[in-house]
């Protein structure tokens, strides 16, 4: 069943045509990696999925809800679709534990005891249980990002969106974050959409790779096919550049 479905989606920022006729279907449990040069629209695209950016025309269905339908309650989508940001966006006025427990408490009305148990389990999972009572500013970027992932997971989402989750991190922090993401991807019920420049991660974890440039999807292929023989000229250039840089 499709979790996310774009049909002829157009997005404009005033006169700038940011997303051009996007058609993309992402199925339940799939892990899809979005790659492309900066300014290609991949971040814009992922942000339309949970309504942080609006679209002007076409059809976008997420978890059964039509985003362009005025009657759709966007919060119902966001409850089941978590997001992890480049700059973490942890609540600066809350402790780590409070960060994780806030939304389950006020959105899902989860009981305090259960809420705390789940939060601590998640902190164990991302290896940061000892930091529970600190504030986000006291942690490193890599730690903050793992907390942000735990915060999203606490809502027990069906789908997680990652918008360049490792781009703002020091190189030695990236591995820990990717490890946590890999564990989530192995859980076959979770749908994941990841905007990233981490080709190693894409190759290892993604079911599919979508390549974008200038607001258009140029290639949408299985991971293996994409890395072996990118069909699109522009995609192959991009891949050569980024891979020669990694080596």
């Amino acid at each position, binding site marked *: 069943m499709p979790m996310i479905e774009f049909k002829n989606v157009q997005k404009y920022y005033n006169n700038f045509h940011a997303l051009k006729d996007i058609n993309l279907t992402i199925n339940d449990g799939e892990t899809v990696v979005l790659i492309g040069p900066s300014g290609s629209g991949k971040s814009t695209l992922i942000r339309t999925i*949970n309504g942080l950016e609006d679209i002007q025309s076409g059809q976008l269905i997420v978890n059964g809800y039509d985003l362009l339908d005025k009657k759709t309650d966007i*919060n119902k989508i966001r409850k089941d679709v*978590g997001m992890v*940001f480049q700059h*973490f966006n942890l*609540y*600066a006025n809350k402790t780590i534990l409070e960060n994780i427990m*806030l939304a389950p408490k006020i959105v899902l009305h989860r009981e305090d005891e259960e809420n705390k148990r789940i939060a601590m389990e998640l902190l164990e999972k991302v290896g940061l249980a000892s930091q529970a009572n600190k504030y986000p500013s006291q942690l490193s970027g890599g730690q903050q990002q793992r907390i942000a992932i735990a915060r999203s997971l606490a809502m027990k989402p069906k789908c997680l969106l990652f918008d360049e989750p490792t781009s703002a991190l020091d190189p030695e922090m990236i591995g820990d974050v990717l490890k946590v993401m890999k564990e989530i991807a192995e859980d076959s019920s979770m749908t994941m959409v990841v905007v990233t420049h981490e080709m190693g991660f894409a190759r290892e974890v993604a079911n599919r790779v979508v390549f974008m440039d200038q607001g258009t999807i140029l290639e949408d292929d299985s991971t293996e096919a994409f890395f072996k023989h990118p069909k699109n000229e522009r995609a192959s250039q991009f891949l050569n550049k980024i891979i020669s840089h990694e080596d």
Partner: protein
Amino acid sequence: MIEIFQNYGSDLLYGFGQTILCSVIALFFALILGSIFAILEVMPNKLLQKISKIYIEIFRNIPLLVITMIFYVVVPMYFVKISGFVAGTIGLTLYSSAFIAETVRAGILSVDKGQMEGALSNGLTFKQSMRYIVLPQAFKYVIPPLGNQFVNLIKNSSILAFVAGFDLMYEGNVIAADSLKSISTYMCIGVLYLIITLPLSYYMQHLERKLS
């Protein structure tokens, strides 16, 4: 000066009390009104934004005296009779609320946009995100400029003197005319205003240090 305090002590005390009363009432309602309009101005709804913008621009750009006179002269002519004190306090409230709205709005906007986005995508509604995440952080930024607004409000309460509000300034004018000692009278009045405003300024500075 001591002579003025001795001869007109009860009048001065009454004016002092009226000034404090007017300021406290105006401060309370201006803070509520100002915060409401500040939040309306950052809401995604364009119509609410417009309404709030119009309110703020009107009351920020008309002199306080004119607003007060409208309530003192025009409103009793067509609607209900209100005293100078009430007219002055309403005028002061509306005028100050516009400035407080701008101050609070700036505070909200100085909170990183990612905080709101993080909260929204975590499943919180706009209202919940504001209440639990953005406003508590904005509060910290808003304290110092809000302190200035409070002090301004207290000084502006002297507008009551124009509409027979029996505040400190009004009593001062009466005493100056009665005693023919303008210099000492207005010095007394100045000292009494300082007694209200200086502790407030110091308290706000203290609060600012504590929060940072």
